[in-house]
């Protein structure tokens, strides 16, 4: 079989796809930059744009602070903006990875109970940590909460995978149903924790269950960045594996990929991203399902593009949602989970309605 001279049709198709991707990513980056600027400028306390920029520039040059708005800009809005971008990117990325792992566009850490599991673990550390850990450790170290949320996310992902997988095949219907059951169980246990807790703990729990970036601080940014940033760097190495997994686990093995290692890495990354996000921002739902789906509509399902584009899209969505949460009812603040759910739930229904026989469980 001689390899005939080709017309370059495929090369052309791929070039066009790359050009389109470059354009979309450039637009998304511009949107992200615009939103980032807006989120520093807008808020409950009016800061004239010129002055805000001045504060930023001075801080950037390392000059001393003397402006009245330094605290607002540098210690509240700037960390909050960074946290929103990281949390959004982490949630959207974990959604995209989970959908690739389960080979289903409906899989999402929020829908299948992973988020709830992480929130339950975080809640348990808040309520039970005071009673059980504090006497031993003195004041609870900050790392306990993210660690708890991470372990909760990891445990629920593993449990879900174990329940839904029989003889190497993952049943999507079982996964969605088991996810609902796990989510409900985690919700009930969280409710029980609320029943046990005192007033201060109750406020903390409410914060977790609806999600908020209100507590953003440089401490949180510094705590989460070492988890979320390496994650973004690690994700591209999963892309080839997730592409092959789309054909099925056996097929991915036939294609020469180490399937078990890819699966283990994907589960670990999802648990890390979800755990870290829940630890600093509580439960922010629907980001993981809305963003990857939109990216697939625009750029196609190739994970080499999907993963970075989803991270970017997630950052945009959460940053925008947080901006709305801060400004819609200003000076009061809406929980960001309400905004993402208000966008995400109708979107999810629309997804179900337009779904043809080719997609889905």
């Amino acid at each position, binding site marked *: 079989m001689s390899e005939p001279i080709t017309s370059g049709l495929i090369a052309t198709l791929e070039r066009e796809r790359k050009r389109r991707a470059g354009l979309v990513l450039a637009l998304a980056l511009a949107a992200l930059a615009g939103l980032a600027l807006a989120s520093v400028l807008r808020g409950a306390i009016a800061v004239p744009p010129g002055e805000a920029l001045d504060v930023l520039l001075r801080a950037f040059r390392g000059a001393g602070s003397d402006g009245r708005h330094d605290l607002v800009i540098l210690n509240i809005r700037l960390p909050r903006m960074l946290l929103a971008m990281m949390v959004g990117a982490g949630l959207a990325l974990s959604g995209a990875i989970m959908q690739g792992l389960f*080979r289903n566009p409906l899989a999402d850490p929020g829908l299948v109970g992973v988020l709830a599991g992480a929130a339950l673990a975080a809640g348990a550390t808040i309520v039970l940590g005071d009673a059980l850990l504090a006497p031993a450790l003195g004041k609870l170290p900050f790392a306990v909460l993210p660690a708890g949320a991470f372990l909760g996310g990891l445990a629920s992902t593993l449990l879900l995978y174990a329940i839904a997988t029989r003889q190497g095949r993952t049943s999507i219907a079982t996964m969605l149903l088991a996810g609902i059951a796990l989510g409900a169980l985690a919700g009930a246990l969280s409710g029980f924790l609320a029943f046990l807790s005192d007033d201060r703990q109750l406020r903390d729990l409410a914060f977790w269950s609806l999600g908020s970036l209100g507590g953003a601080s440089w401490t949180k940014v510094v705590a989460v960045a070492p988890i979320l940033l390496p994650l973004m760097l690690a994700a591209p190495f999963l892309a080839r594996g997730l592409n092959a997994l*789309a*054909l099925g686990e056996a097929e991915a093995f036939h294609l020469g990929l180490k399937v078990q290692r890819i699966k283990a890495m994907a589960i670990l990354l999802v648990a890390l991203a979800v755990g870290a996000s829940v630890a600093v921002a509580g439960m922010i739902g629907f980001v993981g399902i809305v963003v990857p789906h939109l990216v*697939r509509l625009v750029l196609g399902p190739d994970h080499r593009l999907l993963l970075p584009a989803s991270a970017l899209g997630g950052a945009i969505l959460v940053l925008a949602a947080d901006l709305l949460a801060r400004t819609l009812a200003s000076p009061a603040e809406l929980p960001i989970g309400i905004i993402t759910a208000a966008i995400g739930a109708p979107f999810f229904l629309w997804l179900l309605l337009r779904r043809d026989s080719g997609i889905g469980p």
Partner: protein
Amino acid sequence: MSAILEAGEVTFRIGGKILVEAASLALQPGRITILVGPNGAGKSTLLRLMSGELVPGSGQVTSLGRPLPDIPVWQLACRRAVMAQAARLNFPFAVHEVVRLGIEGLGPARSGGERSRLVETALAQADMLGHAARDYQTLSGGEQQRVQFARVLCQLMAGRHVEPQQALLLDEPIASLDLCHQLGLMDAAQNLARDQGVAVLAVLHDLNLAARYADDLVAMQNGRIVARGTPDAVFDDRLLSEVFGIENRCDDQLRARFGPFVLPQFCTIAGRGQGAGRAA
């Protein structure tokens, strides 16, 4: 010389049920081996054992003398490609992206231009180049099968530089194809065997096509290999009625002109609509 893929006395059971029992099969370069047998005979399981996807409970599968578990998966992927039964996708991959997956797992990287040429050549050989930009999910079952065939062709072409001795495993590759493309796919497999020395193993239900393309015909029943040899030797009325439970006629006049030819008359297994085929 050791075979490209060889199963030695492999047995596979699941939940106490034996799916393949003490089966031995060697795939030699340039030869087409075709597995036939009724549903549940263990054909697909034997194929999956030989691909390395399943690990036998006893016995072992070797490739060029080495046990499969000792060979790195990427190297194995350069050496053998597998086309499983109907593969569905839940994401809207374009046809050319699905074919490109054939190269994803192979070790040594290739330039983007070379990859594109391999994808295009494979698509052309499977007669799917005209659909290269289509969404795989919107194709018919037969078209999807041709894309999957293009994918395994692509994998073999890409792996050839690393592993010159290759095997192609096809599990009911023509189940959804029209007659023209059935012949087209089997011809392509035959060309791979003749020109490139690829060892081909295919599971087929169409006995006449099996007879036409097989160098070695292997019949399975209840997890065991019950007959093997040239199509002429394997297909006789007794074996067919025993293995498949059909009353049939291997037409002698046709056999003289075209080789073995099977025209099923009616099913002899109780409760399976006996006589329903008599009118034919």
